[in-house]
């Protein structure tokens, strides 16, 4: 394999990141970069987070997924000897990704200016809750603090419940995706000018676009979007919009919106199955003809225009509920889509693992783990690239698995020095 078989095969990335930044370095690693994960002696604490493979607390599925295609060395930055080794590695690196509290690396003499002295074109990517500057820069910011302060939780949930935390650390995910894209934008600048720089990612800012229209709605008309269950932007229960129960789960409808077939097609489906009840009669028939984006936009803008239509819509929703309850979620999804109706299955993780589309495209990716005597089915790629395919290039590393390859073979650390570093707790 040459360095041009992958998109980033010519790059070395030093990964000092905690949980918030590990999806960023995974994105770079699966695109071919040589990502060297620098773990404290004893290992990255994220290795201890669930879910685990069959209750084996040494095999965190959460950690494994975030650390595909990476190599691992151990190094303590608390020791001068460790910092010296890091400096030697920086001289060989293109990108450093870190997520320490702002100022910590500076306090060790390893901030951007110091790294740029060692490697002038280095790209230091710092991913933290609130970024490197500003009054909250020093705040502790696990995922929940980011999604709270970033406006995302405010929009999620039922009004009678606390605002909902999105699943599986979406604050970290957004921060990591923005971090990876920004690092590569800076890389492109470096490709053309030779100039390195410091990239400052704030989880709070990375999440801002996830507020959909809430920011603009407050800015433009001083109306505040609030959490309202599954209805999102729409203030009422509209038949065919929202969560509907099936015989074995749920589907989600978005009828009457652009791209999909109009509500009349839904009515036809119900007629064809003998389940339309009285919806072919007035006042329903005429109302169904008018149920389109224009109508929906009208009531979003001015809910008072809804008037007596609310009873009509309530009855229609009941009839749709009886229809969906008579079908399985896959029949509603695939049958609805066959009629170009915007019905989507509410997928469980099992539904996703068995999804015919993902199966056809071989999305799950088998990775052999000789130490576990198993091949695990890893979640797959976010994108396909024709010339430089995404791949899991190596199973996630064991703690310090590449110490000898990196320290001895590359940096020329001799046996005596190694013994001393071990004794000092540096590696």
């Amino acid at each position, binding site marked *: 394999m040459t360095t041009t078989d992958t998109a980033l095969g010519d790059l070395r990335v030093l990964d000092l990141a905690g949980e918030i930044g590990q999806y960023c370095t995974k994105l770079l690693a699966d695109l071919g970069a040589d990502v060297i994960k620098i773990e404290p002696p004893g290992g990255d604490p994220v290795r201890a987070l669930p879910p685990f493979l069959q209750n084996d607390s040494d095999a965190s599925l959460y950690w494994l997924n975030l650390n595909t295609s990476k190599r691992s060395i151990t190094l303590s930055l608390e020791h001068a000897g460790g910092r010296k080794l890091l400096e030697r590695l920086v001289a060989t690196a293109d990108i450093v990704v870190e997520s320490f509290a702002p100022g910590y690396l500076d306090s060790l003499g390893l901030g951007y200016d110091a790294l740029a002295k060692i490697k002038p074109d280095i790209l230091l990517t710092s991913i933290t809750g609130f970024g490197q500057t500003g009054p909250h820069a020093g705040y502790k910011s696990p995922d*929940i603090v980011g999604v709270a302060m970033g406006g995302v939780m405010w929009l999620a949930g039922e009004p009678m419940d606390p605002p909902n935390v999105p699943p599986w650390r979406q604050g970290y995910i957004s921060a990591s995706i923005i971090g990876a894209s920004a690092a590569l934008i800076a890389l492109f600048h470096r490709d053309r000018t030779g100039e390195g720089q410091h990239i400052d990612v704030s989880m709070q800012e990375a999440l801002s676009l996830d*507020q959909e229209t809430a920011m603009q709605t407050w800015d433009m008309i001083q109306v505040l979007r609030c959490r309202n269950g599954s209805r999102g932007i729409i203030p009422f229960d509209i038949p065919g919009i929202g969560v509907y129960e099936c015989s074995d789960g749920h589907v989600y409808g978005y009828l009457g919106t652009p791209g999909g077939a109009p509500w009349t097609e839904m009515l036809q489906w119900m007629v064809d199955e003998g389940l339309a009840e009285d919806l072919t009669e007035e006042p329903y028939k005429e109302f169904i003809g008018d149920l389109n984006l224009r109508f929906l936009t009208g009531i979003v803008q001015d809910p008072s225009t809804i008037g007596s239509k609310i009873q009509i819509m309530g009855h229609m929703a009941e009839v749709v509920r009886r229809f969906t309850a008579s079908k399985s979620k896959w029949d509603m999804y695939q049958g609805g889509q066959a009629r170009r109706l915007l019905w989507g299955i509410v997928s*469980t993780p099992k539904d996703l693992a068995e999804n015919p589309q993902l199966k056809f495209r071989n999305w799950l990716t088998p990775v052999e783990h000789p130490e576990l005597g198993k091949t695990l089915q890893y979640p797959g790629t976010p994108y396909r690239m024709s010339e430089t395919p995404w791949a899991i290039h190596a199973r996630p590393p064991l703690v310090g698995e590449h110490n000898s390859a990196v320290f001895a073979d590359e940096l020329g650390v001799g046996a005596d020095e190694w013994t001393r570093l071990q004794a000092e707790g540096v590696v």
Partner: protein
Amino acid sequence: MTQALEGVKVADFSWFGAGPICANHLATYGATVVRVESETHIDALRTVAPFAKDKTGYNVSGYFNNFNAGKLDLTINMNTPEGQGVARKLIEWADVFLTNITPRVIERWGLTYDNLSQWNPQIIAAYQPMQGYDGPHRDFLGFGAVLTPITGYSYISGFPNRPPIGLGTNYPDYVINPGHTLVAIMAALHHRHRTGKGQRIECAQLESSVAPLAPAIFDYTANGIVQERPGNHIANAAPHNAFKCAPLTDGGRPIDERWLAIACFTDDEWNALVEAMGNPDWASDPKFATHDARKTNEDELDAGINAWIADKDAYALMADLQSRGVPAGVVQSARELLDVDEHIKDRGYYVYLDHAETGRAAYDGPPAKLSKTPGALRSPGPLLGEHTERVCKEILGLTDEEIADLMVAGALT
């Protein structure tokens, strides 16, 4: 100042959210982005609220404008042969082509990678189909609203006693899908810089959206466990929830809720929280003494904090808890982000731009701060077809006469 992507040319044949936001970031960091639209099939976001106060028409949606700042806007009727000719010229000019229009339509218009790479062998062509260009669900419909449930977010979001309601937004449209596509485009640009080779990118929104839910998928493929809606609790912290504080008031009258998110991952954080609460008796009970004990008794723990916090000011308490090393953050709304949050103001994240029809409006600024090439929003969301003539002349090199002919043929609508 030179921006990172100055000189990079982007033909943005996308609409709605996932595509336009990706191209928006490219424009913010300096690329020349030509957004292609048509009056004959308008980007529906132009017709979706919010609209500037007392304004109507296609140019006043804050939803659309926020995702299209910094772009030039060209209208082409792709259902005319002349319009397709203009599209081809634009693609010949471009370094990057981007679309999230459905595969059926892209094929009908002849905008496949096979064609594009013949016209422009070095092009990086990024497609964002809903499900992919092959497979049994290839032609399934959808956008963010339906994608959120299809890709698993809804099933594992929220409280177990509620239906799978999702996140209240078309969630994967805004960061996940545009962001993944941007990563792939930038990786491809780096590769092209080294090898001269373009390529085809396919960021199927199904795959891109499911990837961040890996821990749930993996738990099923490795363990056969179907994760359920967990509420606000997570395994490695307790407490980990949003707690209701004193309401926001106006002249003493409560006008809105205020919630504070608090999380303790370590005994130190918990002990600091207990001290902040004034060491109440209930908190010293052995059933809260260790992380495992707090997890076991978490509902009772939440109730204790709720009782204590109900009359507290959320912002003051956030500052106090953070000063003691306890992770805490106000559950902010857009109102707080724009008007109250001194931190985000200090960093200048939101940008206010003057727009010919909406007047001054707020926009999301650069998503990351690059120290030497910081990026900037060069112009507000474009009017429909605002730059059609300019793009035809200055970018495509057409003469006035050629442009007139195209207009007569109805190609530039």
